[in-house]
Every structure is written in C-alpha cells, then in structure tokens.
C-alpha cells in the first residue's frame, strides 16, 4: 500500500581519473564479538541513526529486515539495495570487518567494485572506525535472510562502476569528523550526527548537475522526487530561523511541532530513524543546525492585489481555511501553521505543490500517533488555480517567495508519487 525509498546521488563522469585514497585498516579481520551486548546495542542505535533500514529493508517483507531488494529510485534509474543480513551467500555474512568498513566509509566492495553514492558513504566517511565496528556487530545479530539481490540495475554506461572513480575524485572527501574545541560537546555531537550517520545533506544539500554536494550551500535545500527538502540553516526567509531548539528536536522525535508536520520522505525518516534517537542527540542536532547561519537574497512578495493573489485568496478561503484556518495558523501538532512551516517558506514550491496535488500522510510516532493526512486536490483545481493558491500561501503571513509558475504545477501533476 505504500512505497518507500531514498533518493540517491549519481552522476556520469566523462573523464577517467584517479580515485581517492583509502583510510588505513584499524582492526583485525574476522573477529566477531557477539557477547558484547553494549557494542551490539550501540550498533543498533547507530544503524537507527544511519536509517539503514530505509534502503536495505523491503517494506513488503516486514519479517525480514535488512534483506535488501528494495528499489532505490535515482534520477538515472533504479538501484536495488543489497542484502546486509549475515547470510553467508546472499548477505554480508562472509565479509571481514575491514571489508565492511571499506564499504561503509570508502564506498568499496570486497571485489573492488565501487558503490554508487546512493549509499551515502561520502557522509559515513565522517564516522569513527569504532562506530562502524559497532554497526557491524549489530548487523551480525540480525536474522540472516537468504535473498539474492542483483544491485546493478542502471542502464549502460552508468552500469560501469569504474566511472565512480571520477565522481569520487570530485566529491568524496575522506576523514573522520573532527570535533572543534571552541564549540560545545552538544554542537560537536550534533555535527557528527548531521555530517556523518544522519547524512542529512544527502537530501538537504543542493547538488551539482553531476549529483555532488554544492559545499558552499550545505543544507540549504534540495528538490528530489517531487519534494523539496527544506533549508535547514538559520536563513530567515527560507530556513529554520523561526524554529527554536525545542521545535527542531520535537519535530525530529515526533514528526510534528507547533508549526509543521513531517510528510513524504521525511515522515519515514522520522518513523524509522530520528524518533528512535535519544533526547540529548536530538538536542545536539538542533544545536548544530541552529548554528548554521545563512542569509539568502531577499525576494519580494507577490503583491496582495495581483490577479493571482486574489484568486489564491479566494481558493484559500473557500477550500483551505477549513483546516488551516483563515489566518493560516492551523492547529498545533495537527494541521500545519502555514506561517511557520519550513515547507511553505522554501525557495522552491515543490513540496507545497506535491501536497496540494497528491495529498500527504504525516509521520505517526509513539508520542504523536495521530498521523493526520492532507487530501489530494488535483481533481478539483486546475494548474492555474493550484499555482494561484500556492502563490498566495507562499506570499502571505510574512513569506516572500515570489509567484509559483504554472508549468511547475503541470510537471508535478503528472509525476506519480511514491511516499518518498
């Protein structure tokens, strides 16, 4: 009944070139410590931080987690995530500790083939060797699933993994996260999670046309699979400036805060990953994100008496106010406050158009089980009307993001949505 998946970053390199150096091996091969319950629990928690299940578990096979086979959509085609259970033939049961570490932090498989960055190894490279060892210890305890997965699904010539050599040269930076002594422990822990296992930038950092991170615009938002992962910096126009530390932590833990609700790919992230994080870790992530300052170029709001805004206001009053209220304030923790919503404030209108056209189901967690849903309006509103109401919402109550173009609506109307 619902699909999952993750975006991936993939590019086609036109030049052959050198590849990045490996980090040195740090522990012996073949060692398994199954009685070290602390290590296994730490590994379980790290696997939650890394949200490995999002790709490596098939939602239609709930009784065999991490068994692989789930199709991970990328702009260039589908990849099938491998089986990472300890099955010796079809999983990673025979891998040595070094091989596991090479895969996770360096993007190399035991036979030397390179991983596509659909596996976010450029982020996991920030992790410590000990943490990776713990993840392996946990995965070792998962029920082995005999399930052969042929990961290679991309069309030629993208199927030639060697092209990743060039991509890695351009975009892969090895090296663990370096804590900053001038910053608090919380900030450093938050940075480790965000830049490392949390791999937030995989969705939230804008990409070049080759699919690599634009490092000068880290965490400033990116459009993928019909959604726009918002700007997580403190940008007053498009980011989380209005959100407190508490707001961010609450959102990550429960999927909801007084402003907004996690839907689409983020709803799954919350349900599988951040709702399982500890309170100190959530506070740390919030601390780190709130320190990321940026100021984007100011935009002018669409004038309230323009034909588009007037039409949008009429639609809003007739259709949207029943839930979101006339003043856009919604119902805290149930119906988003459009004035404080990160999705509404985003540079691009993609998420707003997505939920209007196709509807959305928000995250449901133990703390916030309601999981309210937004209906689909595609059948009721024309492209011009969707553009009008989206423009109205994105240029009212303090927002200034400019007009939403009709072609954007048309494009998004056609795309069929998975829950991602």
């Amino acid at each position, binding site marked *: *009944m*619902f699909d999952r998946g993750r975006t991936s970053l993939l590019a086609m390199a036109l030049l052959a070139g050198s590849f990045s150096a490996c980090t040195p091996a740090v522990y012996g091969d073949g060692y398994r410590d199954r009685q070290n319950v602390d290590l296994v629990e730490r590994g379980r928690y790290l696997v939650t931080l890394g949200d490995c299940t999002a790709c490596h578990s098939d939602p239609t096979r*709930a009784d065999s987690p991490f068994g692989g086979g789930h199709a991970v959509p990328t702009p260039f085609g589908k990849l099938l995530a491998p089986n990472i259970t300890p099955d010796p033939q079809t999983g990673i049961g025979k891998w040595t500790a070094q091989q596991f570490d090479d895969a996770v932090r360096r993007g190399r498989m035991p036979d030397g083939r390179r991983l596509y960055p659909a596996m976010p190894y450029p982020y996991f490279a920030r992790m410590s060797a000990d943490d990776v060892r713990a993840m392996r210890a946990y995965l070792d305890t998962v029920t082995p699933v005999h399930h052969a997965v042929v990961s290679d699904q991309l069309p030629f010539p993208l199927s030639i993994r060697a092209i990743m050599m060039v991509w890695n040269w351009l975009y892969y930076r090895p090296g663990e996260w370096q804590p900053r002594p001038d910053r608090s422990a919380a900030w450093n822990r938050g940075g480790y999670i965000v830049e490392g296992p949390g791999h937030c930038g995989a969705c939230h950092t804008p990409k070049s046309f080759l699919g690599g991170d634009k490092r000068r615009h880290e965490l400033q938002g990116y459009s993928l699979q019909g959604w726009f992962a918002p700007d997580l910096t403190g940008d007053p126009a498009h980011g989380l400036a209005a959100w407190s530390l508490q707001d961010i932590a609450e959102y990550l833990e429960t999927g909801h805060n007084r402003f907004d609700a996690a839907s689409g790919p983020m709803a799954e992230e919350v349900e599988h990953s951040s709702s399982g994080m500890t309170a100190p870790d959530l506070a740390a992530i919030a601390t780190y994100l709130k320190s990321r300052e940026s100021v984007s170029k100011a935009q002018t709001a669409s004038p309230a008496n323009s*034909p*588009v805004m*007037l*039409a949008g206001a*009429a*639609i809003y*009053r*007739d*259709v949207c*106010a*029943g839930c979101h*209220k*006339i003043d856009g304030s919604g119902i805290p923790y149930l119906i988003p406050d459009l004035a404080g919503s990160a999705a509404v404030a985003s540079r691009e209108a993609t998420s707003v158009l997505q939920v209007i056209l*196709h*509807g*959305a*189901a928000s995250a*449901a967690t133990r703390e916030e089980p309601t*999981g309210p*849903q937004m*209906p*689909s309006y*595609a*059948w*009721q*509103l*024309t492209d*011009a*009307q969707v553009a*009008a109401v989206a423009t109205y919402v994105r240029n009212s109550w303090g927002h200034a993001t400019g007009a939403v173009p009709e072609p954007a609506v048309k494009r998004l109307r056609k795309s*069929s*949505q998975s*829950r991602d």
Partner: protein
Amino acid sequence: MGDGVRRRDVLTGAALALVSGAAARAGVIKGDLPWRPDAVSPPPRVEPGPWQFFTPEELPTIEALADRIIPPDPETPGGKDAGCVVFLDRQLAGAYGSAEGLYDRGPFIQGVEQQGPQSSKTPAQTYRAALQALDQYCRDGGGNGIPRGRRFAELAPNEQDEVLHGLEGGTVHLPGLEAKHFFITLVKDIQDGFFADPIYGGNRDMCAWKMIGFPGARYDYRDWVSRHNERYPLPPVSIGGRAEWTPRQR
C-alpha cells in the same frame, strides 16, 4: 490468509458483483493507517453533452414538468433553465436510475404505506413509463375538460398545473403506475437537482443557492458563529469552485 482456513466460494455472479464492485479495496490493515497518494473519490462532474437517458420524445415533457414544479421568475430560473433536467438525466442514467444497491429480491408484494416502496420497477423504468403515460393521458383529453390531441408540453401552464394537481391528489390515474407515488418522486427529484451542488448538473451557476442565501460548499464558519442576526456576506461556492478561483487575465 493467516490463521484462517479456506473453505469454499459462496458468492457467484451478480450477487458478487453487487458487493465487490464499488469498493475493491478489501485487505488486511496492520501496522499503519492505509494511505496512498491521490487516493480520493470525488464526485463525477456532469459535463454538458448529449442526453444520456431522456429521449427526444421525452424531453419536452420532462422539461415542461420541471418548469411547473419550479416555475421561472424574473429573479431565479425555473427548473429547466436551472439544469434540473440535465441533473435528472444523469441520475437516471446512473446508479439512481438503476436502483443500484437497493434490495431487489422478490416476492414483490404491495404492502401498506408505512412498509415503504415495494415496486420491482427501477426509477429509470418508472420514468420511461410515466412520461409516456402522462403524454397519452393528455392526448386522450384526460377527464378534466382539457381538449384532446395535445401532449403535456403543449398544454397551457394552468392546464399543466391542473394535471399535476390531479396526479398529486390521486384523481389522475396513469395505467400500470402508482401515479401519486411517481409524482412525489418527480417533485423530489427536480427539487433535489435544483438544490444539489452544481457539479451534478442542476442548480446552474448556483442560482438556487443564491435565491435562498446558502453559501454552498463552505467549510469554515468559525469567524461567524457568534455574529448573530447578520447577513452572511460571502458568495456561494460549489465543490467545483467559483469564478473568483481563476486568476483574471489583465
């Protein structure tokens, strides 16, 4: 099916179709609230187009009936111009006309009034028969001194009203039909079309809603519930929207 033990097929053919046709989403719900994008079932929009039920022979009759049940006046259209016949046309061509979902097993026995309708005829069948019978009644001159040879649509409005009063009062009989009951249904159907959302073909331009001051398919009156004895100012809106929803071209 989990612990269930399969036995045998118990439903076949028509009975099966009746049940499983409309909502084929049977399944197991476990772990999550079921949800899919775009999973809505909005009302079908009636588009202008060829008649789907009424024949060219029937149309003058039903249009005349609509205009007697809801006569036109300078401020508000009558039943015909309000689209009530379009409404009824689509309804009779669809589930309403074929009595879909109603219990249609026999035996069909006429009971007392309070046991409810027991006819084996669908609304579609009833209208076909009734419209024809009505015209025939008028052609035959009725019993009311109306000259022979003219069908219902050709009578003067006051003569038409006389016939309708006769149907309503039980003095006009239509062979093979419960005339009084048909008339009640007809009045209800025309008035339903008059007041229903325009998306169904009647209530054109929300004329009926404008007539009475009903704001239509609105959903939020929180700002008005305490405003007592004041006229509500916003215009009506249909499920299909209103003109102000589309940006004006400069």
